[in-house]
Structure formats: structure tokens, C-alpha cells
């Protein structure tokens, strides 16, 4: 019986398989000083699809930690400081528009005082692309349990467009695509085997973004 619970516990800790792919294209050379900062902004729109704030935060956390931490500026702080220029419907859609923004009074001063070197736009979302199976749970005076199996497949697809605020140009793009299937198996108790494609895309994108920014030609 004890072995059964150990096995069930191990199963619960198992993660579903995730396949991911990261691609990068570079338009210009990059590099960052220790006192310079990056800001990550999630692209927002007013339809159902929108970059989740938790995803942007996940990348910011990954970049701000580790052996070579990069100084990060919080998304909200940046948007508030430069209101109304980075709101969902007023934000620039290409690096060519940066010149117009820098011509606004006080804009350059605020960028300079925060020493923001790069701006990375994160665009994408995680969606469920397939699901199936069935599971039923019953409870009675003699006990209860769940039987069956259900699954769902998620696709996390995100892009990062990196702009250099010093040169006011686009330096490149990175894309991350991860797919994974999660299972919920009912063997008396429900056992989840979760794939986390969103987390895989976050870690992959953060790693590539760090390498891209820290040095490359």
C-alpha cells in the first residue's frame, strides 16, 4: 500500500513532455553596461488575445537573476513614467516611431534618468489547441474515487522584438514556440501530469534574450 502511494506521488511530480523551439534574427550588434537596464513590455490589445502579465514577469524574473543579472525596470513603472506614450492603443508599433517620442518634452530625460538601454516587446499567448478523454468521479457511503483519463494540449507562442533606445533602432527578434500535452489520470485519486509549455517558452526566451543582449554581433 505504501509503495502504491509512493508511486502515485512520483507520478504526480512527473511533468508532461514539452517540445520547444527558439529562433532568433539579429538586425544590429548589442551589448549592455552593468548600470544600464532593460524593460519588457507585453503587447496588449482589446480582444481576447493578450500577452499575460505573468509571462512578462516570468522573463523579467529570469533575466534579473542568475550569474549575469540584468537590471530590469518594471513594466508598470515604465508605462506610468511615460504615460500616455506606451498605453495599449498609443504605443509605438515600430522602432521608427521612437524619434517622434523622444521629441516630446521630458521623454528623453525620463529614459536617461532610468538608464533604460533596451525595450523588448513581448507578444503572444498560450492557448489550448486540443483536449479529449473523459473522467468521472463518484462518492458513496462506501467511499469514492475517480476513474478515466483526460488530456489537453497547449501551445505557447511568443515573440520578443528588441529595440535599442540609445540608437533608436530595432536590434532583432526572438521567437519561442512550445507545445505540451497534460494528462489527468483518475486512479481512485486524480493524478495530474502537467506539461507547462508557457514556462518552457518563458525560460527559453529569457535564456536567448540574455545571450542576445549581453553580447552579439
Amino acid at each position, binding site marked *: 500500500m505504501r509503495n502504491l502511494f509512493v508511486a502515485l506521488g512520483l507520478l504526480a511530480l512527473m511533468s508532461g513532455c514539452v517540445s520547444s523551439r527558439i529562433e532568433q534574427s539579429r538586425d544590429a550588434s548589442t551589448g549592455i553596461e552593468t548600470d544600464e537596464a532593460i524593460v519588457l513590455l507585453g503587447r496588449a490589445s*482589446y480582444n481576447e488575445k493578450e500577452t499575460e502579465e505573468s509571462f512578462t514577469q516570468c522573463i523579467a524574473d529570469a533575466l534579473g537573476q542568475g550569474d549575469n543579472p540584468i537590471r530590469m525596470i518594471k513594466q508598470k513603472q515604465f508605462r506610468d513614467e511615460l504615460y*500616455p506614450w506606451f498605453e495599449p*492603443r498609443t504605443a509605438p508599433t515600430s522602432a521608427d516611431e521612437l524619434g517622434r517620442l523622444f521629441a516630446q518634452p521630458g*521623454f528623453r530625460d525620463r529614459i536617461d534618468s532610468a538608464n533604460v538601454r533596451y525595450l523588448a516587446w513581448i507578444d503572444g499567448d498560450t492557448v489550448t489547441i486540443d483536449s479529449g478523454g473523459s473522467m468521472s468521479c463518484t462518492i458513496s457511503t462506501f467511499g469514492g474515487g475517480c476513474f478515466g483519463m483526460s488530456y489537453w494540449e497547449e501551445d505557447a507562442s511568443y515573440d520578443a522584438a528588441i529595440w535599442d533606445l540609445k540608437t533608436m533602432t530595432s536590434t532583432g527578434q526572438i521567437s519561442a514556440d512550445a507545445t505540451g500535452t497534460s494528462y489527468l489520470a483518475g486512479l481512485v485519486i486524480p493524478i495530474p501530469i502537467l506539461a507547462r509549455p508557457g514556462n518552457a517558452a518563458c525560460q527559453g526566451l529569457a535564456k536567448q534574450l540574455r545571450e542576445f543582449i549581453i553580447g552579439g554581433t
Partner: protein
Amino acid sequence: MYTESLELGLRFQILLRQSLLVLAMTLFLQSCTTSVVVQGTIPTPLVSKIPARMGVYYSDEFKHFKYEEVIRDSGGWSIDLGQQNLSFFQNLAKSVFQGVEEVHEPPLTPEEMQGLDGVLVPSIEKYGFLTPSISGLKFYSASIEYRVSMYDSVGTKIGDWNIVGYGKSEGGMFSSDDAVNEATVLAIRDGGARIAIELIDQPAVQAWLQSLDGSIESPVGTPAAVEAVETPEGLDGVPDA
């Protein structure tokens, strides 16, 4: 006599029961109404000031704007936007114009217009919100439609502009009243951003500013100014949420 008093007693009992029922229903409905006094922080816009001194009129309706709606699945909602709107617009006007002074309802006398180049009148045309149970989406959303009217120093209308602001908030992070509050603050912020950036670019405003500079001879008669008076312009072509 006995029958009459019995009937009277019975009627009194029915009346009492009905009154209690009405009272209970009223209390029940009141308890099901979600009241939201919209509160939040919206930053001061970082924009070039329009070189004009404006009188700004805030109507009582604008100052105390309250939206009420009964939704079948989620009960009554009472959303008080007044104070948040007023303080945001006061801040917005100060940021957008070189000088601002609160005035009474136009038209103003020439004496009252002394030192002012025009009058701005903001109003709320529409407000609405959607809960996930209505929209079927994962988030709460709010939209607010402002109308901004501008008059020149002699009381001639420069133009009217309708601006729609949108906001949305994830339902899972907040309780329903907090989520509606958050979505409404973001809608005000979005509408304010459009006003701060786009008002100065309107042809009628440009024509009026040129008339202030004296760089054109007959500003009132210019086609742009006339068109702006006759045809309300919308800064926003996006339909309501």
C-alpha cells in the same frame, strides 16, 4: 360583527405579510447590489502643452457620474465614477493646456473670458462594463465614451470630439467589484491618453491655435473650422465594447 372583525383581522394579516415580503425583497435586492466607488492612480500625462489658457466647465452630472445596472446573473451594480473622473480630468487639463481655470457653464461674459482663450467642456456620453458571465471571456471589461467640446473666446464652438476609452482586468486576480474598478480606471486612463495625444492634432484645434497666433487672417471662416463646428469629429472609430 364577529365576521367583519374576523375579515378585518385576516386582511390585516395579509397586508402585514405582504409588507414583510416587500421589505424582505427590498433588503435582499439591496444586499445583492455591488457598489463600486472607482478609485485608482492615473499618472500625469507627459505631453507638449497646448499654448492656450482654457476655462474648463465640469457639469454636476460629470462630477457625480454614477452608473447603475441590474444584471440578471450578478445582481445590481452601482458604479460611482464621479470623483475619479473629476480628479483625472483636472490633472489632464493642467498637463495639456498652458493655463487652466474652472468656470461656470458656458456661455461666459466677455469679462469672465478675460485672460482665457477658450472653454473646454468634458462630458460622459456612455459607460458600460462586461463581466465574464456576460461576455464569456476570461476578463472584466469597461468602456467609457467622453465627449469633449471646445469653444473659442467669443463662445463659438470649435468642435466636439467623442473619445472611447477601454479597460480590462483579469477576473481571477480580483473580486468582481475590484475587477470592475480596475477595468474602469484603465478605461479612464485609455481615454485620457487619447485626449492628451490627439486633441492637439485635430484640424479645428490647429486652426484655432493659428488664430490665436494671428498667423491666419480669418480663422472662423476657414473650411476646417466650419467643418469642425458642423460635424462632430470622433477621435475614435472603434465600436463600443
